[in-house]
């Protein structure tokens, strides 16, 4: 049996606004194995983004613990690369290639030459070879997200954390990006923790889906996804009923 990669045990998360202390999640547990495409799915207010931030190390759990390969997560680090929803996650003062290369060099992971080679490899993979010397402000939203994905993958992290990365894209681009992500996964079998509020996207992308109910976020169900076209509809209805019944 394979070892667990990421283990989330009884995690309660709280954050403060100026007036209130809000409980984002209440004693949430789940485990991710290597190669999983693990989805956190739920309506807004279910704490899925907070959970992702906690795994990213930006938010410390009030109770429970999160471990990566048995080691407790205490802060952000390059072994958990984040892909954000926002288009401004690329550094505007760096070209596409420089954006991908920067974390490779900043963490001292690779030499200059190796870093550029790796960057080129992943930029090719996401199909941005032609735009490799462009600055981010000249790219479309979909291209920016591709760069962010290339940047995350080039680091070859233990786990890739994606926070609704396609939510701000138009429906057509979104569909293409989902297919591309799956193709990339077929190539490299990376582990990804993916947050979405779209049932359809969850079923398309994930192999395992954690359903969360809102206020505060609690586990509602953990399901296997399907790629059997005849079962997708039934699964979609089932998830819909679980979330909104």
């Amino acid at each position: 049996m394979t070892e667990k990669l990421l283990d989330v045990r009884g995690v309660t998360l709280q954050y403060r606004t100026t007036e209130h202390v809000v409980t984002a999640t209440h004693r949430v547990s789940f485990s991710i194995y290597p190669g999983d495409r693990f989805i956190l799915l739920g309506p807004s207010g279910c704490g899925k983004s907070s959970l992702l931030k906690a795994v990213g190390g930006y938010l410390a759990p009030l109770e429970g613990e999160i471990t990566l390969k048995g080691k407790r997560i205490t802060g952000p680090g390059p072994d958990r690369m984040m892909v954000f929803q926002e288009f401004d996650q690329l550094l505007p003062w760096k070209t596409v290639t420089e954006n991908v290369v920067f974390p490779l060099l900043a963490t001292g992971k690779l030499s200059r030459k190796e870093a550029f080679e790796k960057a080129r490899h992943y930029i090719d993979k996401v199909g941005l070879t032609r735009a490799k010397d462009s600055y981010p402000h000249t790219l479309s939203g979909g291209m920016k997200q591709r760069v962010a994905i290339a940047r995350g993958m080039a680091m070859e992290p233990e786990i890739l954390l994606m926070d609704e990365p396609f939510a701000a894209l138009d429906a057509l681009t979104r569909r293409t990006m989902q297919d591309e992500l799956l193709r990339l996964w077929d190539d490299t079998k990376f582990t990804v923790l993916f947050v979405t509020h779209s049932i359809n996207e969850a079923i398309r992308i994930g192999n395992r889906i954690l359903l969360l109910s809102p206020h505060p976020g609690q586990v509602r169900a953990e399901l296997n996804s399907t790629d059997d076209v005849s079962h997708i509809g039934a699964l979609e209805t089932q998830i819909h009923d679980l979330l909104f019944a």
Partner: protein
Amino acid sequence: MTAINPFAPPRDDQFFVVPVFGENADVERPIPFWEKLWNKGWLRKCLIIAALAALWQAYGVFSDNSLLFPTFTDTMEAFRDNIVNGVLPARAWTSVRVLLIGYALGIGLATVLSVLAITTRIGNDFLETLTSMFNPLPAIALLPLALLWFGLGLGSLIFVLVHSVLWVMALNMHAGFLGVSQTMRMVGRNYGLSKLSYVMKILVPAAFPSILTGMKVGWAFAWRTLIAAELVFGVSSGQGGLGWFIFENKNQLEIPSVFAGLFSVILIGLAMENIVFRKIEEKTVRRWGMQH
């Protein structure tokens, strides 16, 4: 199929067209020469300057009082003479050198203060208190005190210069740091950068538009302060700057030379703004799409 609208008449006349672009179609057409010329910013600005000079000349000729208001051509003559005999370049260099020292020190100190302010809460309070106390204080008001402390010379000038640059620069830099988006901050932390390289490699470039504004305003403040300070005491170790040049010529009633001195101040300011800062902008914020 339910996709068909039951309320509309049936439309079976579907058709497809493959667009063919005309052989001689006008896809791309060069911009006319005059329009291209008019698009050059420097040319438009030169025209404005030429118009102002013409106005000056007209008024100078009209008032016919070379003591109070010399004409543009008189000023240019004095300017040329003073360049040729080497006085003006030497004076200008003295001023610029002092200015650069004070400016660099001011920016350096401002950077230290703003970095402290963004990384620690007490640093933040410190900067906020100091800027609200000292920013409204005119640098020149500190000059008597500076003279007392540092004597007549370079030390006093640099002290007032640093004061004039520091607060406005720190204020802008700090505001720039605060304006960096949350996403970009998280990206920086995601890379696991150290505190210092996080500031230098993420915060500084991301806040660069504000930093540049601070540098521009600081530069102007520094110039004003320096010329004013030189007018007050001018000579430092036997060699005065542009302010002193102006003061000296006023005493000798060489009014065209006074104008020539002022003209040099303006020229240096124009050159700094339109060459140095412009180049920096082109290479940075414009290229990165942070400013259009």
